[in-house]
């Protein structure tokens, strides 16, 4: 569809002519760079270990030894970013434990999907068994007729609207960040990438468990709250992943 056909050609041409007169560049305020640099430097202020003379001598003479270059020489597991990644992972583990306890207290089947999407034999609680949601393509434990569980394929139960909105919002937000990360994978330092992937895997498991728990208890405020926080942790982790150090950029 040609949107321009709806307009008077003379008017449209007048607008185009006015646009051509607009400057392509506008000089920024003189203080802009100073403010930008200060904000960047303040975000890079960290408690760094005292540099030895050897570390300073290792710096390439032709390069400016910035804080980032100095920081890259610190053992990767001591870097604040890595510590944050590990902390996020530990939080996800704690979240998972809380989820499990919540479900046990509600007397639901504590079935958790494994890495291959199949749910192992579930522990049957004292109260009537309910069906837990599995990952798409996976299987869940159906309400057993006997004490022995069987695994059958069942469609996922529809979640309540507010929770579904949470899923949609965070899924959209993490998707873009995940794509950026995937595009950078081959350039990231292996040690940092390994820590990141481990943390993401743990957080994703916590998210899956929360979602599964919500199918049986969609109004459980504790689980909903934990799910939101876990999603936020994942977002924060992916954002911080953009700052992970890379291997040499030289072709």
């Amino acid at each position, binding site marked *: 569809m040609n949107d321009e056909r709806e307009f008077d050609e003379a008017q449209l041409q007048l*607008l185009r002519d006015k646009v051509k007169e*607009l400057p392509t560049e506008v000089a920024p305020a003189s203080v802009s760079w100073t403010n*930008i640099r200060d904000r960047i430097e303040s975000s890079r202020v960290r408690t760094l270990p005292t540099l030895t003379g050897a570390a300073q001598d290792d710096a390439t003479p032709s390069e400016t030894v910035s804080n980032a270059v100095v920081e890259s020489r610190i053992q990767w597991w001591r870097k604040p970013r890595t510590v944050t990644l590990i902390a996020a992972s530990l939080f996800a583990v704690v979240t998972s434990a809380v989820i499990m306890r919540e479900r046990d207290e509600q007397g639901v089947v504590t079935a958790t999907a494994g890495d291959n999407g199949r749910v192992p034999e579930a522990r049957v609680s004292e109260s009537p068994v309910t069906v837990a949601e599995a990952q798409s393509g996976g299987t869940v434990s159906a309400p057993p007729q006997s004490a022995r569980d069987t695994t059958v394929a069942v469609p996922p139960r529809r979640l309540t609207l507010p929770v579904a909105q949470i899923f949609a919002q965070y899924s959209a937000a993490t998707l873009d960040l995940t794509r950026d990360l995937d595009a950078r994978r081959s350039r990231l330092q292996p040690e940092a990438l390994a820590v990141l992937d481990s943390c993401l895997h743990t957080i994703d498991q916590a998210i899956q468990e929360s979602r599964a728990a919500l199918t049986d208890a969609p109004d459980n405020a504790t689980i909903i709250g934990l799910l939101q926080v876990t999603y936020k942790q994942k977002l924060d982790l992916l954002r911080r992943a953009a700052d992970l150090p890379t291997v040499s950029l030289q072709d």
Partner: protein
Amino acid sequence: MTEDVARAQRGDMQAFERIYQQHAGRVNALCRRLATDVNRADELLQDVFVRAWEKLQSFRGESSLESWLHRVTVNVFLAAERGDKRRRAHEDVADDDSYELSAITAPVEVGDRIDLERAIAALPPGARMAFVMHDIEGYSHDEIAAMSGIAAATVRVQLHRARRHLMEALT
């Protein structure tokens, strides 16, 4: 990928400053037209380059650095608008239908560049962004959609709306 970009990606602040000096004028022109006043434009410019520093590792050289900086600008602008919108509890930036010409109390003078800038500043954020990126910066609907995460069809609608209001203001 230029040497300055590669060095800045490794944390060289002086290299990043050279990048800033080279591109700040173009980026600032874009910021001036996306934001509604000079102060907000200055803030947007600073936010853009701070964000560019943070995200520079994601620049792979597949597009020009200028296009990449424009993408960062659009994203920072839209994020700020969404934040403002949440605080004002208004409708969505990309789909807003309400628009009042009250900000323009009199037809702009034909041939007055500054008044066109003012007329652009008076547009709703979504329409303003679509017009600036398409008719001024020269990006296609699909490119704007990819930059902003807004559907190309919505970009077309917003652009049409912006042109209509600007032409009314110019006559």
